[in-house]
């Protein structure tokens, strides 16, 4: 992995416009043949990822939309899951979307060979249900809040995100610590170096002020995160609280469907394995007096957690999609922190680092071994 290199780029009239200009230029020069980027839907009430071939479409693109309707990793995976294409594509996403994309590549669900991933410092996103109430007004409010780094309106998980400037793609737009009307273009790979080179951008500027600001910002968020986790644990910790928390769950499995790292085509919890005869269900009801039907609501949540918490990127898509307002993203993210710390792993940070559950290390986890001897 290459060390981060950067350049200071003039951002006029705005950061977004400059990014779009750079993309147009790179398409013109053949650096990329197409771009995956969020655009506002014709109805104006949502944003969707669009694979753009005609660069004239780019003028309507919104590199940093106020919401995340579909996790960007899903967009990249839908195009490259069955293999790399002939065309070179740039994908513009938020850091947690890039991290999920990296996890998907590790899981064989995306092919990044002909893909250049571009991320940017992220101010968070609005919960989509909030956004949908007044789209026009909320776009303005988001833009103002983003400028001031005010996260009060954002998804609860964005408010405690300490990885909002993590660079794990090829290029990154750094706005933190940048002088007025400039941003940092940061490269994280030879692909990134190459793209910058072809655009005539010299990656030789000092990016210390960005790195310092990112560190301060991330440290602040870490503190906030720790506090939030403590409060959440008091609320949902232990099996009784957990069952209570998920008692409103209606088994729609929206959380799983929108999760960028829940990759199974048919979830175990939707499969034949969890379907039983009436007599089996009655036996359970008789032994307990009564059972919720369908049973095993919390088991689904815990099962899903076991399957994906090593790769969870804390994007909050699950929480946004929950029609019963269960803080499922906050819970999963909290557990994911612990799972990932156990393996000294940060999901989506580095494409070359294998997922711990598929990497065998003989000397690993001695502390959970049987210590009878």
């Amino acid at each position, binding site marked *: 992995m290459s060390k981060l290199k950067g350049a200071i780029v003039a951002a006029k009239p705005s950061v977004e416009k400059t990014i779009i200009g750079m993309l147009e230029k790179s398409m013109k020069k053949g650096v990329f043949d197409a771009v995956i980027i969020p655009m506002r839907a014709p109805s104006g009430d949502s944003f969707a990822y669009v*694979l753009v071939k005609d660069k004239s479409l780019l003028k309507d693109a919104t590199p940093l939309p106020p919401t995340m309707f579909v996790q960007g990793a899903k967009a990249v995976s839908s195009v490259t899951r*069955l293999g790399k294409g002939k065309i070179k594509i740039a994908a513009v996403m938020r850091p947690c979307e890039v991290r999920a994309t990296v996890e998907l590549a590790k899981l064989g669900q995306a092919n990044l060979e002909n893909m250049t991933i571009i991320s940017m410092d992220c101010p968070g996103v609005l919960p989509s249900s909030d956004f949908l109430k007044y789209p026009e007004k909320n776009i303005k409010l988001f833009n103002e809040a983003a400028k001031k780094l005010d996260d009060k309106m954002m998804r609860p998980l964005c408010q405690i995100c300490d990885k909002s400037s993590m660079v794990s793609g090829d290029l990154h737009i750094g706005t933190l610590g940048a002088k007025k009307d400039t941003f940092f273009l940061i490269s994280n790979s030879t692909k990134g170096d190459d793209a910058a080179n072809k655009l005539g951008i010299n990656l030789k500027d000092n990016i210390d002020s960005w790195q310092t600001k990112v560190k301060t910002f991330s440290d602040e968020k870490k503190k906030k995160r720790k506090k939030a986790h403590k409060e959440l644990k008091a609320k949902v910790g232990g099996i009784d609280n957990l069952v209570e928390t998920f008692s409103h769950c209606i088994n*729609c499995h929206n959380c799983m469907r929108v999760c960028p790292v829940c990759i199974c085509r048919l979830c175990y919890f939707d499969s034949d394995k969890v379907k039983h005869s009436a007599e089996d269900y009655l036996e359970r009801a008789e032994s307990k007096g009564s059972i919720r039907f369908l049973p095993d609501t919390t088991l689904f949540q815990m099962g899903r957690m076991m399957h994906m918490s090593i790769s969870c990127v804390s994007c909050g898509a699950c929480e946004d999609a929950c*029609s019963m307002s269960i803080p499922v993203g906050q819970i999963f993210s909290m557990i994911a922190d612990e799972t990932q710390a156990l393996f000294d792993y940060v999901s989506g940070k580095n494409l070359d680092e294998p997922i711990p559950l598929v990497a065998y290390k003989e000397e690993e986890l001695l502390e959970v071994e049987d210590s009878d001897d």
Partner: protein
Amino acid sequence: MTKSLKINKSTEQGVLELLKYLLENKKVKAVFTLKKIEKKGAVAYSLIADVKDLQDAVPFYPLMPVNAGNLLSRFTLKGSPDELVAAVVKPCELRGFVELIKREQGSLENLLIISSTCGGVYPTKFGVDGTVEKNLSKYWDAVKKGEIPDGSRPTCRSCEEFAPYVADITVDMLGKNDLDKQCMMFLNTKKAEEIAKGFKGDFSDKQMDSKKLDKAREKRGIEKKKLFDEIDKKMNGIDGLIEIFGKCISCHGCSKVCPICYCVLCEFESSDSEYGPSNFETELRKRPGLRVPPGTLYFHLGRLTHISISCVACGACDDVCPSDIPVAMVFKKVSESVQKMFDYIPGKNVDEKIPLITFKKDEFKEFEG
């Protein structure tokens, strides 16, 4: 001749008395009904075997956390119960279940179905924030008068199929002005008559008052026309549909909670709906750009094609949609016209085959060349 059973208690209490009698006397092995679970009082369908747990049952709570048609299918899919189980469900849930039975996804065997004339339910999310609990007395006032409860699901507000079709027992509720003092049940089948024998109540040969149902139907019809006009204006061709479904995030929650969508693996989640890079490249030669993942509207049109003949307009899809798309009203509107074409009411009769699997030689001359 239908037998009627009158109990001098509130309607919900009367039904609970009967259920208690059936469980205590081992006439049924268990009761399937809505019940308050956990401390905070989430309401969920439950399978109750111990009569003690009946005390938390709320059979007619105005909420449909999950369409019970789905649940009864899961209950009986891998084998029916050996002995009778009583199930209290809403008319559209029962219709959904019947449509699933026609698709070999369940069976009525050894089920005693209790349903009622239905006042409708509130959107599921109002069960979480306490709104339903707060509105209970207002709800029952409206039901008594045969009126439409404020804030109930749009599909309920416009529902004209509020009387159950294949229930063993029908509970009189909609438009019953003394429902908090008296419980009236109609025993529609031999099974129901047999099982209620020995229960202390007032048996007679009364019929359901159809006039009050006609009145309620009229009110719902007016509401339906209004809601259909609204959605019609929005639908308005492919552009309108793109506007409506543009904010869909493809979670497919609507298909997951739909009592008719029973495929274990949806076509639109299968490898048939995946495209290789060359497909995208070909497509990009034809147009300037395309939404990814692709197929957002296509999914809804496909689902509409698959299920509109059997849609019971329960509104579960609306409730689960995180993007607030009026998916249920679109589906209800389209489904009604499809069902009308085949003169078919889904869930009305277990023995009537689904039109799409019945071939009639003289059908649809108007589409011939």
